[in-house]
């Protein structure tokens, strides 16, 4: 049954059903509604979890790391500056192979201060070892949490994950969402079974330092686990589809790509607008399609190359900028398509909450087809 609810609430409802045992979180817009909802669930005895009201995001993730190492399923949520403050712990949690799931309600990073949406925050942690999934709508945002726990806690993976959904655009927007029952979630996601834990009965040392003789191999192991996560995600996404009727086995998802000459490539909620824009362009006789990247880490380069093999022009919509280089998604798509004869252009768009409409998407396609790209789209030159 579909229920009409706010995106943050949908996420909180699903997280509750994933039965986290320890939650540690700190308020920050636009993530706060999630952890407020979870706090209320704990206060109402609907969720049997220890809820730690930490004094910073840095401590939120540190506490999650400790609780995870002690053998509990953990949860946190953050965004933007909060994620930036967690930077050091993020690398550490992945290096220590703790299967932490954290929601990112994507938001821009200052300066200048902006509370509005883009994807600079999670993209900036792309080298940290965390898996990164991006939701197009609130149903997917909720569903991806169940899949994330399943993938992260797989003993062949043991990595943390960001479940990313666009701040405000999804987090504060009401949409119909199907919520599974607790029994259904329990049937999909088994109880947490830690690979190792801090335990006086069987003492282990966690987080030792590595000399040059060992460090590279530790990093290699994390990298290998990242690639294995692709298969684990496909399997978990397929199982999800079998149980709930919504299949997430595709790491990238094409929309009207089959006979397309030009493909848009994007992540997150902008894909919804892009699909409508594609429909309109199709109605006008243009052979345009869309590729939605659901998984950014590990980066599904072969899957992207395969999905785009029939198109001649690619326009990547990047809601982030690696200053001095270009959009992060565009850079990686170009690498994935290197050696092909395809023209790949990158567009920095929708930074800091700037709205993107169907006509903006159509304008990007026009630019790409004229060979103009690798640029900021829609710059207000009059204020420069």
């Amino acid at each position: 049954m579909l229920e009409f609810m706010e995106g943050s609430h949908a996420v909180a409802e699903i997280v509750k059903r994933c039965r986290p045992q320890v939650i540690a979180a700190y308020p920050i817009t636009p993530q706060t509604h999630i952890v407020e909802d979870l706090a209320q669930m704990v206060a109402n005895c609907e969720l049997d979890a220890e809820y730690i009201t930490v004094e910073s995001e840095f401590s939120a993730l540190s506490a999650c790391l400790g609780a995870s190492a002690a053998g509990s399923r953990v949860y946190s949520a953050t965004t933007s500056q909060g994620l930036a403050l967690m930077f050091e712990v993020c690398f550490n949690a992945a290096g220590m192979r703790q299967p932490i799931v954290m929601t990112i309600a994507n938001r821009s990073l200052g300066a200048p201060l902006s509370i509005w949406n883009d994807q600079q925050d999670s993209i900036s942690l792309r080298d940290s070892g965390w898996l990164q999934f991006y939701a197009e709508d609130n149903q997917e945002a909720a569903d991806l949490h169940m899949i994330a726990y399943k993938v992260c806690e797989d003993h062949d993976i043991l990595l943390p994950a960001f479940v990313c959904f666009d701040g405000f655009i999804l987090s504060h927007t009401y949409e119909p969402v199907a919520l599974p029952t607790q029994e259904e979630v329990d049937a999909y996601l088994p109880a947490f079974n830690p690979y190792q834990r801090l335990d006086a009965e069987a003492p282990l040392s966690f987080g030792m330092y590595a000399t040059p003789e060992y460090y590279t191999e530790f990093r290699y192991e994390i990298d290998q686990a990242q690639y294995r996560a692709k298969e684990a995600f496909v399997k978990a996404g397929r199982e999800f589809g079998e149980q709930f009727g919504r299949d997430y086995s595709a790491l990238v998802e094409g929309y009207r790509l089959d006979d397309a000459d030009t493909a848009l490539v994007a992540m997150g909620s902008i894909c919804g607008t892009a699909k409508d824009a594609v429909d309109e362009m199709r109605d006008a006789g243009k052979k345009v399609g869309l590729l939605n990247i659901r998984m950014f880490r590990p980066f599904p380069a072969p899957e992207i190359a395969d999905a785009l093999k029939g198109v001649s022009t690619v326009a990547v919509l990047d809601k982030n900028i690696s200053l001095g280089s270009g959009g992060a998604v565009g850079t990686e798509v170009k690498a994935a398509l290197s050696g092909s004869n395809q023209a790949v252009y990158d567009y920095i768009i929708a930074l800091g909450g700037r709205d993107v409409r169907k006509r903006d998407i159509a304008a990007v396609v026009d630019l790409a087809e004229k060979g103009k790209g690798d640029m900021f789209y829609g710059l207000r030159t009059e204020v420069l």
Partner: protein
Amino acid sequence: MAEVEQGCELLSAGHRACGGCGPALAARLLLKATGKNVIIAAATGCMEVFSTPYPETAWGVPWIHSLFENNAAVASGIEASLKKQGRSEKVVCIGGDGSTLDIGVLCISGAFERGHDITYICYDNEAYMNTGIQRSGATPYGASTTTSPAGKCSLGNQHQKKDMPRILAAHGAPYVATASIAYPNDFVQKVERAINTPGPCYIQVHTPCCTGWGFESGETLSMAKLAIETGLWVNYEMVDGEVVKAKKVMRKPVEEYLAKQKRFRHLFKPTRQDGVIANIQAIADANAERFGIDIKRKGSSE
């Protein structure tokens, strides 16, 4: 002393601490006090580095190191997890003075305010020794370190030690104490009391560093003892914010302590710095006054 010597060793020999390392002795004594039913959350620092070069570990109890400044937050999570699981292990943080008094204060303050049932042990060797003897918030006034060097226009560190025990007592910690490796039974008893007191407890243990302070490695314990005997370090306990007990001494002049360490050598050579030595004596006098540690000599008038 006999009590302390007994029992199994939970910190293995063969770790990589310097000969005469004060913190290594503190770790060994700490584990004698905690026994096996403990989980240690360690900060980056000398103790972490000398005891856990992968794939070797000296720790016979579960131990976790995450970062320099987050052991109290990691411990908060461990404690919450154990509570949820109904487990009985005690949670003990270990951090050096740089970690505890400087970079980790935010996490420690949060953990103490929330009232987690943890014990925090700060091993205080009065500078960042792991990175090469840089000044910390616990470096004493007048000490020369690599970032507060004595020179033509400087007499070393210009600031007094941050009063971390009082800061944490002000958080409502039920038990706060200072200790010294020169008095091992006292330290062990304080750790036992702390881990058996519900709520967040704090012990700052004075652990001289022969490498960083500049004295012979066989002098570690006598240096720790001299700190107490001069009043520059006071062993005391605070219960619910009130000082209830402080070790009394027949005080010696601070010069006896200072003159034995290279970090204070510039106070004596090439020119004797009477003003600075007097300032340090005044610090010891103020400690004696605050804690009432002076043993009155027979026949002295009150």
